[in-house]
């Protein structure tokens, strides 16, 4: 033996001491560095001064960083700042929410859609009809939820909201047919499927 008993005892755990910190370091992945400050929305006195594309680009750049409770108030503030862009803001907000969503079926939760539509319509109630139509085109499966949210936010605009909700029906059907390919379950090739899960009622 090269080592005496004391030395052996002392160095017995040396290999462990060398490896364990490495394993611990491997387990502790470095957390994401502090995010740089997001360029703020440029708010000017006149809406015409601010370029629409510039506003939307800034809106998207900021919205994609916001999760949970901060997202909806930001959408509302943006729509209030530029009510003329509310229709585009609602579609961008829905698309951003999809990026943040972990849904595997490509659909947003109805509660999220409700919050977004309600926030945008509340911020620009006079444009409720212009907001509802693109929102339904974007999320055709949530037509009922969108109308209910818009009515709750702007009850005075009920007639316009109902009229806008009827129009995009045919367009959304075409969009769905082009985007989604043949599915034997959905197309009924397997016969009537008896499931406790039912699709949302058509409005």
């Amino acid at each position: 033996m090269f080592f005496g008993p004391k030395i052996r005892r002392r160095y017995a755990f040396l290999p462990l001491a060398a490896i364990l910190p490495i394993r611990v370091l491997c387990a502790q992945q470095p957390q994401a560095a502090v995010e740089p400050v997001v360029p703020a929305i440029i708010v000017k006195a006149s809406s015409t001064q601010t370029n629409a594309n510039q506003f939307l680009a800034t809106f998207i750049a900021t919205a994609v960083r916001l999760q949970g409770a901060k997202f909806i108030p930001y959408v509302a503030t943006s729509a209030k700042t530029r009510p003329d862009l509310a229709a585009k803001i609602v579609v961008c907000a829905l698309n951003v929410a999809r990026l943040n969503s972990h849904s595997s079926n490509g659909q947003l939760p109805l509660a999220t859609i409700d919050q977004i539509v309600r926030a945008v319509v509340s911020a620009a109630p006079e444009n409720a009809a212009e907001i509802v139509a693109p929102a339904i085109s974007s999320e055709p499966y949530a037509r009922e939820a969108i109308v209910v949210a818009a009515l709750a936010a702007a009850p005075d605009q009920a007639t316009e909201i109902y009229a806008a909700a009827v129009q995009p029906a045919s367009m959304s059907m075409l969009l769905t047919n082009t985007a989604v390919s043949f599915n034997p379950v959905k197309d009924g090739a397997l016969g009537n499927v008896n499931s406790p899960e039912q699709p949302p009622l058509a409005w």
Partner: protein
Amino acid sequence: MSRVAFVCSGTLCIALLAGCWEGVSRDVLSTLLSVDGEVVSSSKGSAEFYPANSQTKLSAGSILRTSKGARANLILIPGALVRLLERAELKIDELRLTKDGNETGDAVRERIARVELHRGGMVGRFKGIARFAIETPNAAINVLPDCLFCLDVNENRTRLTCIRGKVFANSKSGQSVSVDAGFVCEWPSKNPPLPAAEDKQAQTDTTAGLQVARELQDLAAAQRDRLPF
């Protein structure tokens, strides 16, 4: 007693080191989700191009070309969705996954996608844990997970707009830069990334890229629905 401790610690070390085994690596194929317009592809080592469709399998070495007004949507590896815009050429360098032995569950240790964008534009949506690298004539780009970006390449420059997440890039001159969400960067250039809101093209790319990401997600979801279970 000390000998027992020595043997035990040695055994433990071997057991811990066994966890560092690299696993089994396999080349994989990308899935062409849809094509619109004239899109052609060639396989590795072949100079002949054939029309591409949803049955076309693209492996390492394959080249995908789109003509004017055409576009192609594909999944390189799970989570890496790409739309190739018109007049673009994409070469797949490597598509590989490393898994833990014979595991058939989720024991995938690593996914790698390396592509070259020779010309044209592409929109990428990357959500997942993998290494996703894009080589262009002017820069080498490493895409971090949970990222959405637009990339445009022509003879003179490479331009990257990061819409979500973060991208690291190395220019051919060796300059490294990180491009965050809401910023646009161009190579060759010595300027740091600019806010996308200050650039007209980047503004359009941001809005369009968000819509493309949504369409790619829809196509990927429809592809999953096609599975026979």
